[in-house]
């Protein structure tokens, strides 16, 4: 007896000391590696999985429905989980998704009902909530939906943010193709939704696994929209206002997160032309049990001043029956490939990494998602660019138009998703995933495809090459940069870059690849060639030959990460030929022109991203208009641009060799210069919302952009999209005020008992900026840029 007791005690003491010592030593060793990848962790185990042995998951559509006209009589509010450490239960979520929108949305935050989880929250917290509200939106007029009657939602969708679970196929019927049309129909390449059998025409049974050989994710390791995979896609039409009711179904206990992620969330539609109350302001977060109604007007910028009679046939949305519903606004502001993701203050990196990221395709007169139908290439009077897509539906064909969310991840010895929350220089995973699948393959037809590439990483930059199994570069065209179709298609390889340019976090590149140039059976790969040694920024572009020969052995995320297998195509490719739209030929979507006089008198603002603070050396800071290096304080307004006027924003990262992908909310801009010179060809014809500054390839220390804000007001942000920098705390707030507005927008703060407001203060330069007009260049400008 006593021997056993002693043994047990010895075992407990001995092994915990040994384990501790081992971990402590390992940690030091890990951080001192030449390649700190994955950041501060051991390599992710592969459980015997081999690359390119599982099918990629295709995005699953949320599906929208018409807005109900009246309150539902017998609908129910969301039901709390029985366990404080668990998300809302899967069957309750499915029931909620089936149920019609309830209660009806309101212009101001709905404070008329309590948080339906109030009793459970009180029980889990151990104290009684005195007040609580069903909606988490900050109260009152400041976060009321702007121009609500004018842009009343026509359609809606809802989702519950929730822990990982098995997909039940609850959205099968919401897919526009209904698994009946084109390649999604029976016999098509994408009818079966996952590797293995039993996935025909349904996502029912899809688990959250990086690979079939790897373990399923624990409910608190991954938190996604609905709690399921595949990742979700919103199919939206320009001009059709959408209501997104986002439920927070995450665990009530903040500690129930398997080490990272926060149960408070706020959802940002990246580059949406959305009023601030629906922009996912970093301080406007909501709590488990609550919903937040995001209303996205989906209007073209310039709606108030351009094409006001809605006569331009290029400004419009597909009507579902072969026609176009014309809308107001500037058709050159048409957007295409977006994503939406969490923006929680201090926790954006963790929450997005954990699964709070969806994609969103905008469909319009020019980008209809239907090829061979009233094509611009056939008649210049037609608006439809006929990008590769398909023909079965009037709009939104995805047969040959594929969303690819590329992200590096890491997992622990048990295969559970893992994250190092302490390294604020950045977090790198060692394994590449596409649409959450580790190194997948995809069958493609021998024809043209549009690939919408999104960098969904926390800190990793990519440079992507497309090569055959023989190692030959595959030519392709970039047709959209940051989700905006460019004036001209850009061929690759080109004189400025052989492969895609550096793609920082949140950047989107839409490319058209023609697989018909290759025999059936050819394998074609996406290869990442940009090396990181740590999360602070990328280092060198690794020669493709060194990667393909296996000579390169450094950053484990450099290399092939996706395989395309060319299959026979018997159909007719009716999509446009991007070569007809290169510089000097036809135009896709011309850039909005900026009158020289407007530019000359534009307000200039300077934002220096760096590390040099007032007295503080370490945190990431932003100096606005020559002021102090400041870290984020959402109470502080750093800039108040003038509504409707062009401004010049100068973004810098000049010291320390740091890389920062800077994202400005609400509007895309045009890059005027990089280091005083014209930008490279892929940025010259582009409207951008992420501006890379730093020493990495294809970037520069300074970038100057022209940008203009219209139609909506409120509190927005600008920040570094290396989300570990953003969270620590490289973010600033800027407010768009309506003319004559003298009251500062107060600052939302929250608690379980409701949101409230705190006072706001401003920088002295908030209105004036740092000058007028573009920065004069003293050096001789050259007309060519070289690839660095």
């Amino acid at each position, binding site marked *: *007896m006593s021997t*056993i*007791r002693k043994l*047990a005690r010895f*075992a*407990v003491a001995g*092994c915990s000391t*040994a*384990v*501790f010592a081992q*971990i*402590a030593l390992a*940690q*030091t060793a890990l*951080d001192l590696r030449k390649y700190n990848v994955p950041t*501060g962790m051991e390599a992710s185990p592969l459980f015997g999985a081999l690359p390119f042995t599982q099918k990629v998951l295709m995005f699953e559509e949320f599906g929208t429905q018409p807005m109900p006209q009246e309150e539902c009589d017998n609908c129910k509010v969301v039901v709390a989980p029985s366990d404080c450490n668990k998300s809302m239960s899967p069957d309750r979520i499915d029931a909620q998704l089936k149920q019609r929108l309830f209660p009806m949305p309101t212009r101001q935050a709905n404070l008329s009902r309590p948080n339906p989880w109030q009793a459970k929250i009180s029980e889990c*917290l151990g*104290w009684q909530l005195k007040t609580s509200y069903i909606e988490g939106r900050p*109260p*009152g007029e400041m976060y009321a939906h702007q121009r609500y009657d004018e842009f009343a939602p026509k359609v809606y969708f809802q989702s519950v943010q929730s822990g990982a679970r098995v997909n039940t196929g609850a959205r099968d019927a919401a897919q526009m193709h209904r698994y009946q049309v084109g390649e999604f129909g029976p016999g098509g390449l994408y009818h079966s939704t996952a590797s293995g059998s039993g996935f025909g025409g349904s996502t029912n049974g899809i688990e959250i696994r990086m690979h079939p050989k790897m373990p399923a994710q624990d409910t608190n390791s991954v938190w996604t929209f609905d709690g399921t995979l595949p990742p979700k896609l919103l199919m939206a039409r320009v001009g059709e206002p959408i209501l997104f009711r986002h439920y927070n179904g995450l665990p009530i206990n*903040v*500690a129930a997160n*398997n*080490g990272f992620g*926060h149960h*408070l969330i706020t959802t940002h539609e990246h580059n949406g032309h959305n009023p601030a109350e629906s922009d996912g302001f970093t301080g406007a977060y909501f709590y488990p049990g609550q919903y937040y109604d995001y209303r996205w007007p989906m209007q073209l910028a310039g709606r108030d001043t351009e094409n006001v009679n809605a006569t331009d046939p290029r400004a419009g949305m597909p009507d579902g029956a072969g026609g176009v519903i014309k809308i107001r606004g500037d058709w050159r502001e048409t957007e295409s490939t977006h994503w939406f993701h969490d923006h929680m203050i201090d926790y954006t990196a963790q929450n997005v990494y954990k699964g709070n990221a969806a994609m969103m395709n905008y469909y319009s007169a020019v980008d209809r998602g239907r090829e061979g139908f009233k094509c611009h290439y056939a008649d210049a009077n037609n608006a439809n660019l006929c990008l590769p897509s398909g023909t079965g539906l009037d709009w939104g064909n995805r047969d040959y138009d594929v969303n690819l969310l590329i992200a590096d991840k890491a997992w*622990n*010895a*048990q295969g*559970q998703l893992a994250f190092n*929350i*302490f390294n*604020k220089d950045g977090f790198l995973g060692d394994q590449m995933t596409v649409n959450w699948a580790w190194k997948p393959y995809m069958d493609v037809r021998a024809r043209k495809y549009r690939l919408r590439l999104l960098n969904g990483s926390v800190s990793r930059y990519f440079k992507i090459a497309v090569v055959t199994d023989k190692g030959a570069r595959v030519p392709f065209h970039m047709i959209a940069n940051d989700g905006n179709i460019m004036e001209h298609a850009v061929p690759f390889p080109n004189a400025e870059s052989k492969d895609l340019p550096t793609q920082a976090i949140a950047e989107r590149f839409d490319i058209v690849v023609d697989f018909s140039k290759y025999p059936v059976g050819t394998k074609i790969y996406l290869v990442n060639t940009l090396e990181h040694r740590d999360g602070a920024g990328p280092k060198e572009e690794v020669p493709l030959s060194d990667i393909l020969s296996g000579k390169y052995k450094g950053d484990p995320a450099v290399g092939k990460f996706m395989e395309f297998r060319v299959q026979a195509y018997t159909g007719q490719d009716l999509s446009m030929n991007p070569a007809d739209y290169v510089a000097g030929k036809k135009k896709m979507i011309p850039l909005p022109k900026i009158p020289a006089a407007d530019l000359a008198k534009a307000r200039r603002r300077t934002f220096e991203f760096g590390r040099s603070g*007032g*007295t*503080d*050396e*370490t*945190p990431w800071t932003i100096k606005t208009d020559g002021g*102090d290096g400041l*870290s984020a*304080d959402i109470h502080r307004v750093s800039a108040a641009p003038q509504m409707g006027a062009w401004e010049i924003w100068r973004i810098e990262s000049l010291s320390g060799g740091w890389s920062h992908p800077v994202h400005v909310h609400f509007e895309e801009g045009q890059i005027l210069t990089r280091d005083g010179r014209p930008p490279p060809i892929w940025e010259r014809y582009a409207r951008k919302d992420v501006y890379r500054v730093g020493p990495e390839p294809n970037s520069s220390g300074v970038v100057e952009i022209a940008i203009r804000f219209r139609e909506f007001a409120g509190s927005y942000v600008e920040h570094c999209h290396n989300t570990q920098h953003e969270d*620590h*705390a490289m973010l600033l707030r800027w407010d768009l005020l309506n003319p004559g507005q*003298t*009251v*500062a927008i107060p600052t939302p*703060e929250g*608690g*379980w*008992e*409701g949101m*409230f*407001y*705190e006072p*706001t*203060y*401003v920088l*002295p330069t*908030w209105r004036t900026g740092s000058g007028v007009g573009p920065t004069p260049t003293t050096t001789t400008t050259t007309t060519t840029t070289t690839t660095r």
Partner: protein
Amino acid sequence: MNPSRQARFRYWAAALLAAMGICLMAPIAALAQSPWGRDYWPNVTLTTHDDRQVKFYDDVLHGKIVVVNFIFTNCGDVCPLDTAQLKRVQELIGDHAGRDVMFYSISVDPANDTPEALRGFMKKFDIKAGWTFLTGRPEDITLIQRKFGFEPAGDKPTAHSTTVMLANVATGQFVKRSPYDNPQMLANLLTGQLNPNSRGSGSRQSYANAVAVATDESAQLFRTRCATCHTIGGGDGLGPDLLMVSSRRSPEWLARFIREPDRMLAEKDPVAMAMLPQFRNLAMPNLKLSEANVAALMAFIDAESRKVMEERAAAQHGQHHHH
């Protein structure tokens, strides 16, 4: 074996098996809780300012809401300011301090920072209960910094990270912030989001009370850089009351002292040297302010002083009136 002995045998046998299991599967056991718990933090022995030996995990972190930063007592500029800033945060959280929120400052210069030196430093700042200063073996402190994700200062304490970690160790929440953030924001974090029992702190303004646009950067500067040590008409704090300071000192002297007090002290400026003993020998740190900052601050102090003097005159006038 009687039933109770049998039960005990089963208990210890199970414990042995469990212990062996834990040994093999330690990370799985940790999964149920935060991975940033006992298995992550080094449980090294540190020495407190009052000569107690404490275990870093068991005694310092375990189960607590904590504020942790790194300092050294011979530090010229940043550490005194960090300390003053955190002192302000500690005041703002009121009776949470020492009850459910613990402050810790760990020396990165343990060779010099004996408990006695730490006590001297604390005395200068008039540090209140709920704030422990710690020193220890250099290699242990290096490991702790690494675990926090800070580049260890090594033998160059001036290079240490000034970042503050605000954490709820029980719930596994760790937030890094600058000590120069708005102290109210840090206080909100400690009593709000990091405290699951919080009802939500803050002033609970309603929208109806939204304030007019305030363009008071200098006020913000004063709040975040000066107010921890100085008042304007509120009496001496860690440093002197600045009411009407421009009538006591020349603008040149004042501007230079705000900008580089360390150099003036090194040069043994007589006015600066005379002030030192009046304020516990706590030297004013170099705040690394720009000339524009200094000008803005001087203007702010003047304007605020005038306001205070006017208010006092009005109050006095009112009193006379009553007579």
